[in-house]
């Protein structure tokens, strides 16, 4: 289980700091697949970097299984939008990288990684370099490398957003397969309502921009549990109901964000006017 308690993330920029995320509190139950959805600039990616241990929060705390996060955690794996693959390493060497970094000998690395490559249909391409793979295969390799970490927490930052529609759907189903076979808590950043509705058990909706914040949590009741989902689910009423629910939550969050911004601007204008009047 992952808990976020009032987590704020800020970047150092020229002449100050830019807050990307403001006081985000959330809970991710063990074994769940939670989507983080929101417009670009709302701090989703920053939050993933913080949960991965790459970025230290400005304030607040992140706890994994009750232990406060203090850096990169061996059993947290991250899948990046572009795969984050090393172009100079072969498919197999990329997948083995986490084990190599941990100092495992070559034989053991291979023993652990080859079944994973097999599972993801990449074993025949083990000696290829990433440049020769299709976009879908590259993302599958990203998944393979993540699984090589034997993760209990898998963070995904828009992993399928650069793929064409059919490849994306195939990989989404592939992810559900992975989820059935491995006991992993998954957190998926996406800007696609459909993807969140199809893959996730629960969705945190983000709003605002620099800083963004968590505007609400959408959970579904009824059919469509992880086991029931499959290609047929995309055409089901339950799926459409999810999309509709998520869309209205998303739109409400954006509208609320706009109102908040307008209010803040009006307040700033009034304050400036009052100051001007005083002088």
């Amino acid at each position: 289980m992952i808990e976020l308690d009032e987590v704020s993330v800020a970047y150092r920029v020229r002449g100050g700091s830019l807050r990307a995320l403001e006081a985000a509190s959330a809970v991710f139950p063990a074994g769940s697949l939670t989507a983080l959805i929101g417009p670009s600039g709302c701090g989703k990616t920053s939050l993933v970097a913080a949960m991965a241990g790459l970025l230290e929060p400005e304030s607040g705390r992140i706890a994994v299984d009750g232990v406060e996060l203090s850096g990169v955690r061996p059993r947290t794996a991250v899948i990046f939008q572009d795969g984050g693959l090393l172009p100079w390493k072969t498919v197999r060497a990329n997948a083995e990288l986490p084990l190599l970094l941990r100092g495992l000998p070559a034989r053991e690395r291979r023993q652990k990684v080859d079944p994973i490559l097999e599972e993801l249909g990449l074993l025949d391409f083990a000696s290829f370099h990433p440049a020769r793979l299709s976009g879908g295969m590259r993302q599958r390799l990203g998944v393979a490398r993540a699984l090589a970490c034997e993760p209990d927490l898998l963070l995904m930052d828009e992993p399928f957003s650069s793929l064409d529609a059919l490849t994306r759907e195939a990989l989404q189903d592939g992810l559900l397969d992975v989820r059935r076979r491995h006991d992993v808590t998954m957190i998926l950043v996406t800007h696609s309502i459909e993807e969140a509705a199809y893959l996730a058990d629960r969705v945190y909706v983000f709003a605002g921009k620099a800083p963004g914040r968590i505007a609400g949590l959408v959970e579904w009741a009824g059919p469509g549990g992880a086991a029931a989902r499959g290609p047929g689910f995309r055409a089901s009423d339950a799926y459409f109901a999810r999309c509709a629910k998520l869309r209205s939550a998303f739109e409400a969050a954006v509208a609320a964000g706009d109102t908040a911004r307008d209010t803040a601007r009006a307040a700033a204008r009034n304050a400036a006017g009052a100051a001007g009047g005083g002088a």
Partner: protein
Amino acid sequence: MSRRRVPGLAPAGKQAAEGQRGEGPGSRALRAMAAALVVGLLWWLAAVLVGKPFLPPPGPAFLRLAERLADGSLLLHLGASAMRIGVALAVAGPLAVLLGLAAGRSARFDALLSPFVYLLHPLPKVAFLPVIMLFFGLGDAAKDILIGLIIFGQILVAARDAARAVEPGLVDAVLSLGASRGQVLRHVVFPACLPALLTALRVGLGTAIAVLFLAETFATQSGLGWYVMDAWARVDYPDMYAAIVALAFFGLAVYALIDLLEAWLCSWRRRD
């Protein structure tokens, strides 16, 4: 196979990659030989047109080259020149790579190093030849140091700029796998910079060979540079041209070696 209808629109890099796919190193060697043939032909034509002893046709020059190679005398000088470049590269190369990569990855170290680089790098190192000789004597050390300085600056700047340009996403991805700083350097930064380093090596060694010639005209009796000047003084023009040809082949061999190194180390860049 379909051909592009509009040639020249593909980016140069892609065309190069296609060239590598279609033709192996063998055909590149063939083209180099064809180029050598053209140069030889022009040389012969010029020699016939000029008709002076200081421009003999290629025939006598190559004949002399073969003789001097056979009796080993030219090999000795070739060896002396190669040794100077080799020593300079072996000392300056790794040091420049190390400092350059460190500067590219650490803003603090860069702030320390860069002012010196900007101040010293644009200076023509050849101008320091007298100074270096005064400090380090007339022997090989001075020549090694001069050539080393040239290679060092070239590689240092290339390494720093390449290390700076490493995609941050790749570094993050490998850090997220629990890599240490050293592991990031080894698995991400160094391989990412390798193509730029080899290009710098190519440029640096080209300049180094040119400067070597100059350095070898002072205070030595070995090396191809000395050999050319000596033949000139002896008014033995075929001998002079033989050494010039040897110098050309030496440069070619160095470039071919770097090409082979690149094909071996950067095979991931080929798309075939």
